[in-house]
Structure formats: structure tokens, C-alpha cells
């Protein structure tokens, strides 16, 4: 599914670009005009941003770290392609599991949720999509729409639920057949780039991400009063949102003459 999306978006991007190339007048190596590469580092806030961290009971911002390497090309007609390879703060999905179990068992509340091992870790993030350049003197603004994926660590999770009003309690061992899952992402954002030199500059990126999760789990449920155990398969589907800000530096091989980008 993900490959289909990427292929579709790439085809959509390339078609107008190839047409535009015929009319372009480039200086320096024509084939390189508008090509750039960049590196950036920043911070991201995702759904429940501080659930990722628990150091001595305090929340630390280190888990929101995000960095990425981008490569792209902006064509003469201002449309462009951008590919992103990077890392974003690993998201602890255990609270999602806890919420899903509480939702499936009305009247029960979680009395225990095992700690996550993904604190302060990063997970892979890949994205590809379209950008559009709006040059203004030394500045260039680039809105962008990217499709991609990010890895989620599917750790075995232990949850204990207790029924309010009674002694009844259940212990859940939630385990996936896979260690990792790739969630689809849709990124809408923009870049404000400032040309310090002829072919390089600095920029600030802002992203708004939507992340689709669809996890399959095997759940072992032990009733603590009855001492009975059931096993069932559970699907947890949800959507998360994130906002990130990054600062970086870019290098452009050549610029379109007269267009300022």
C-alpha cells in the first residue's frame, strides 16, 4: 500500500516537472539546477508528548528529538520533489494499548502498565512528496506535502485492569508477532530558507504529521480471581498527530537563473 502511494505521488510530481523542463533555461550544469541537499535537527511534539519519558518521575524533552536529511529538486515551474530520510522520537505505544483495553472493558481502570524501553530512542522515518517554491529575494518559502512511514517498536506490554466497585482484576500480556511496525505518515509542512551564499543557506522547517497505526496483537488475559486464562487477537487502530520544528543548513548545486531559487 505504501509503495503504491509513493509511486503515485512520484508520478504526479514528475509529470508536470518533465513538461516544465523543456522550457527551462538553466545556468551552470542544467541537469543540476534546483537540486539541493540538507540536514536539519529539531524537536517534535506528538500525541501525549511526555508519555515517552519517565526519568525519576520527571518528563524530559529529549525524547522529542528529530533529525533528518533531505534531498530534493525544485524545477523551473517551482514545483519540486523532496525525499526525507531521518529519525523521529520513538513513540511509546503502550498508553494506546492501555486505552484500547480500558475501552474494551467498560468499568475497568488500569492499575498497572509496564514501562517502555523506547524512552529516549529514535525511530526511522522516510517520506517522499511534493514541494512548491515561492522565492522572495534572499528568501525561499517551500510548502510541502509528503507521504511516508515511521517505525514503531511493538514491545510486549503488560497491563493490569481492575473493575471499579469489585475486587475483580485481570492481567493482560499483550504481545505482537512482529517487533516493529511501519505506520503510514502524511506530512504537511513548510520550509523557510534563507540564502546566505549563492548556493547555500539556512532554513527552518515546520511539519504537521498524521500517523496511522494498525497493530495486531495477541492478548493473554488472566482473571486474577478465577485464575483462568483466555487468549484472543486484538487489533488496535488509531491515528496520532505530531508537530515538529527543525533548523538546518542546505546546499544547492545550481540555481535557476533569474528566479532566485
Amino acid at each position: 500500500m505504501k509503495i503504491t502511494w509513493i509511486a503515485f505521488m512520484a508520478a504526479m510530481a514528475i509529470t508536470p516537472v518533465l513538461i516544465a523542463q523543456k522550457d527551462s533555461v538553466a545556468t551552470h550544469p542544467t541537469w543540476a539546477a534546483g537540486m539541493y541537499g540538507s540536514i536539519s535537527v529539531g524537536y517534535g511534539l506528538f500525541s501525549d508528548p511526555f508519555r515517552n519519558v519517565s526519568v525519576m518521575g520527571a518528563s524530559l524533552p529529549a525524547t522529542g528529538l528529530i533529525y533528518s536529511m533531505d534531498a530534493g529538486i525544485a524545477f523551473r515551474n517551482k514545483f519540486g520533489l523532496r525525499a526525507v530520510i531521518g529519525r523521529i522520537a520513538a513513540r511509546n505505544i503502550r498508553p494506546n494499548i492501555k486505552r484500547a483495553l480500558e475501552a474494551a472493558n467498560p468499568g475497568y481502570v488500569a492499575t498497572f502498565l509496564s514501562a517502555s524501553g523506547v524512552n529516549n530512542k529514535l525511530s526511522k522515518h522516510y517520506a517522499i512528496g511534493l514541494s512548491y517554491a515561492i522565492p522572495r529575494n534572499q528568501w525561499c518559502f517551500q510548502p510541502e506535502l509528503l507521504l511516508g512511514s515511521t517505525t514503531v517498536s511493538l514491545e510486549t506490554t503488560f497491563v493490569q485492569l481492575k473493575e471499579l466497585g469489585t475486587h475483580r482484576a485481570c492481567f493482560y500480556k499483550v504481545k505482537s508477532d512482529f517487533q516493529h511496525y511501519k505506520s503510514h505518515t502524511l506530512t504537511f509542512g513548510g520550509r523557510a530558507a534563507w540564502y546566505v551564499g549563492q548556493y547555500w543557506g539556512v532554513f527552518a522547517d515546520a511539519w504537521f504529521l498524521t500517523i496511522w497505526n494498525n497493530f495486531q496483537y495477541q492478548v493473554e488475559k488472566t482473571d486474577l480471581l478465577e485464575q483462568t486464562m483466555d487468549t484472543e487477537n486484538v487489533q488496535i487502530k488509531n491515528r496520532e498527530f505530531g508537530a515538529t520544528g527543525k533548523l538546518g543548513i542546505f546546499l544547492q548545486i545550481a540555481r535557476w537563473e533569474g528566479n532566485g531559487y
Partner: protein
Amino acid sequence: MTRALFLLMSGLCCLLMFGNFQCEQHYCSLEFELRNWHSVWLNNSGIEPITSSDPIPRSALGIRLSAAFLNPDSLSVSENEACSWQAFHPISQLEIFATNGFDTIANGDNISSRFRLRALNAYSFQYLTLEQALGPVNFFYAPVTPDYEIDLVMIEPPSQSGAYQFSVKITYDSLSMPPSPDTFFTLPTVILQ
């Protein structure tokens, strides 16, 4: 040069002879005694059981037994030190009786099978029968605490609301010659909703 080597070797020899090297961590094992038992009613309606003197829902009734936790060796143990604690006079039987009968239960019947120990574990808690409870009651790993508490929950409550009275009997292992006789006390009347 020779003098420096001599001094170095002498220093090493002194270290080996007089140094207090420890290759293994000291294993800390202590004994405890329990005195002055008390009991209160528990309401386990919420996430954690809380003590209550008000009417309690029948399905959430519990008893908290507490005793003074004494260390006969009078050893000072820091709170961070992980020690195993073993009862100097182990409890051999923990029983609950219905002072007044209810449902099919006659006055004075043993209703221990209707109770479970709410034992804390690495995750949160688990329920143990009172026979299974003797293990964790007499031997545990825990930081030093001034109080010793046992939470018992009633999993088969009376079918009707009303006033009820229960008794607790704690029997010690007779082989270890307990300093005090077995303990038997009756809890105050509880109103069940």
C-alpha cells in the same frame, strides 16, 4: 629505579594484606517478629483499597490486618538495602470466621475460603488463597517499613445487605515457640450495602 620498584611492591603487598577487598556482595537476610495485631475494614471499590468505617459495598469488602514489625536483631538496615525478611515465629494458619451466620453459613463457621490475600507483586497485585498466602506473609523482600499490613478481600460476600461481624484467628508455628499465644480477635460490625 630499583628503589621505586621496591616501594611499589611494598605498597601492593600492604594493600593485599590489610585491604578490605570484597568480591561478593553481602547477602542481607533478617528476621522479624509481629506484635500487636490490629484490623480495619477496607473498601476496595476504587483503584486501591482504602480503610473505611462507613458502609461498604458487599462486592468490595476487605480486611486490613496490621501489626508492629519488630526486628529482634536490632540491626540497622538502610532503606535502600535490599534484604530478605523471614518471620522469626512464622504464621502457620490465617483463618476468618463468621461470628454471625449468613446465607448457608452458621454462626462461627470458617469462611477463609471466601477470602483472598491481595499480595503486591512486581506488576501490581495478585490474589492468593489464605493457604498460598503463608509464603509471602512469612517471607518477603521489601524495604524496611515500620508497619506490616495484610490486605484480605472477600470474594464471596453475603448475598444480602446488612450488619455483619467476622473474626480473625492467627496461628503461629508451634515448633518455633512463639513468645505470645495465638491471636484471635473479632472485628467491629460492618454494614454491607
